[in-house]
């Protein structure tokens, strides 16, 4: 079955889809860089004496890095979501489910309380370490006799998530008001940076993670046949599972450490694209990355402008806009497939 579906994917279709989505992403980045709570003129920014104009500072120093960060974070969460849904054979799997994000949040908050400044690179570094630590913990705890099962990973992950969420609430209860404010960032998520270096660093992890996932795309396809089926089809089930888990966690860790927990992107975008493009991971993974990037870039543009000049948390937009749209698409598909 999986084989048959996979055979529909020609090199040409893969290339056409990826190029189209890439073009959509580039257009989205350019367009949303011109959208914000205040008006900034691109002509003035790039004109004579440009760098000394407020327009240049707004577009080049504050808006564009943020848009690019949104693209990388959206892509990472969405690709990780697609991979986790296939890996765990569970449509509800999403990047924040397995405790990796909460682990990042706990470590980030501990760094804040230990006295790190909220805008120093120490906080995302600690969060990244926290995410990887939680990931290792989940994997090792879910393993027995050198083997894991999707169920074990899911259960241990969900429990680790609950423990970390409780730790966040505990910190919230005992921290001072000022420190507790930091909780907001982790729970609601936010995109804000003026550092191209940070965006580049996260992009390196994102692209490495994505490449790693795509390299295992065929194995992920075969997981649909169940562990034994996949094994009979020649997949090193345990090795592939470990690789995909590590790669997806890398994507989530890099994204969460700089943006907190932005929900729904990793759940909605892969499902949406699966409805449109079919389940072949060789196409779905890169498409999810690009689609997630486009989605979050626009969601953040809406978050910046909807209440202007005040901002909305971007997670509010992703859930409020993405949720109903997803249900609409799902219902259309159900109407067509169910008798």
């Amino acid at each position, binding site marked *: 079955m999986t084989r048959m579906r996979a055979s529909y994917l020609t090199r040409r279709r893969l290339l056409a889809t990826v190029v189209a989505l890439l073009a959509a992403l580039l257009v989205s980045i350019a367009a949303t860089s011109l959208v914000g709570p205040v008006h900034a003129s691109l002509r003035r920014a790039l004109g004579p004496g440009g760098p000394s104009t*407020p327009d240049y500072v*707004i577009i080049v120093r504050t808006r564009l890095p943020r848009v690019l960060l949104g693209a990388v974070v959206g892509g990472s969460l969405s690709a990780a979501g697609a991979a986790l849904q296939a890996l765990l054979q569970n449509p509800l799997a999403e990047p924040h489910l397995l405790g990796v994000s909460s682990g990042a949040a706990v470590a980030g908050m501990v760094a804040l309380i230990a006295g790190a400044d909220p*805008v120093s690179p120490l906080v995302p570094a600690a969060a990244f370490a926290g995410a990887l630590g939680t990931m290792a913990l989940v994997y090792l705890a879910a393993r027995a006799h050198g083997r894991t099962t999707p169920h074990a990973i899911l259960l241990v992950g969900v429990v680790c998530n609950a423990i970390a969420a409780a730790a966040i609430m505990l910190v919230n209860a005992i921290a001072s008001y000022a420190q507790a404010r930091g909780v907001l960032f982790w729970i609601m998520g936010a995109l*804000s940076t003026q550092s191209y270096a940070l965006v580049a660093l996260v992009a390196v992890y994102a692209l490495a993670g994505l490449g790693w996932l795509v390299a295992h795309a065929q194995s992920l396809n075969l997981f649909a046949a169940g562990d034994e089926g996949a094994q009979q089809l020649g997949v090193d089930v345990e090795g592939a599972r470990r690789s995909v888990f590590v790669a997806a966690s890398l994507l989530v860790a890099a994204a969460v450490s700089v943006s907190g927990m932005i929900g729904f992107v990793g759940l909605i975008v892969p499902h949406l694209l699966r409805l449109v493009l079919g389940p072949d991971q060789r196409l779905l993974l890169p498409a999810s990355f690009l689609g997630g990037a486009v989605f979050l870039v626009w969601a953040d543009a809406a978050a910046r402008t909807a209440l202007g*000049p*005040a901002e909305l948390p971007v997670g509010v937009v992703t859930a409020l806009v993405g949720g109903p749209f997803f249900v609409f698409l799902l219902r259309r598909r159900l109407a067509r497939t169910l008798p």
Partner: protein
Amino acid sequence: MRAACATLLVLATVGCAPVPSGAGGGPPARVVSLAPSLTEIVWALGAGERLVGVCAQCDYPPAVAALPRVGGYLAPSVEAVIGVRPDLVVVVPSPGNREAVRALERVGVRVLVVHDRTLDDLRASVRALAGALGLTAAGERLVADVDHGLAAVHARVAGLPARRVLLVVGHSPLVVAGAGTLQDELLTIAGGTNVAADAGQAWPQVAPELVVARAPEVIVDAAMGTEAGGHDLFAGLTTVPAVRDGRVVALRGDALFRAGPRVVEAAEALVRAIHPEAGG
């Protein structure tokens, strides 16, 4: 369910420690304050020795450190409050303590609820607390002291042009003081104009680009509990006058965030940040 539990706990506690009724003549002698601002007011009214319990965040004046803590500002412990047998509990309303207030009233403890968001709230809460403590004259004196203090601060900047000010209270996300806040009022008294006054919220979260567009002459960084590193947040915004002229000023301490007697201190600190040329 929570209410039921609280009631059970309350009944259990009442059984072994009868709560004295505040109604029985004479001003209250055992007072619990559940907000840092109210603790400061009670102390400034000269009734500090009547405090028998304060909230976990109550830290001024330093002498309150010795008093029993009866739970958090946002989530007081009904048991702990009743345990110190108060005849008056003073509190600022919040969703987190509404049930606790109800539970206390149900067992007959006198609870005085006052607001602490603006200078008018401060005047009203000083008078209400003073009235409840039988210190009406001291209350009027304290209100007059605060008003005179603020007027004196304002007089120092009277001849100076108002500077455009952004008051930052959180870095990540970037949160600033909007209109209708105590901080907005103090900033105006200190010779500033709040560039975020039109944001439509008391504590709007804003994008850094708004800082560029509003071009404040002074950025007062009161993001609490943080060190000078916050300046990185604004360093790249080179067209902003405050950044260009080195007027990004870190303001420490919590006087600015409490509608208490120290608002005069807070206004003075704001003058030093906004109009350093005014001296003092």
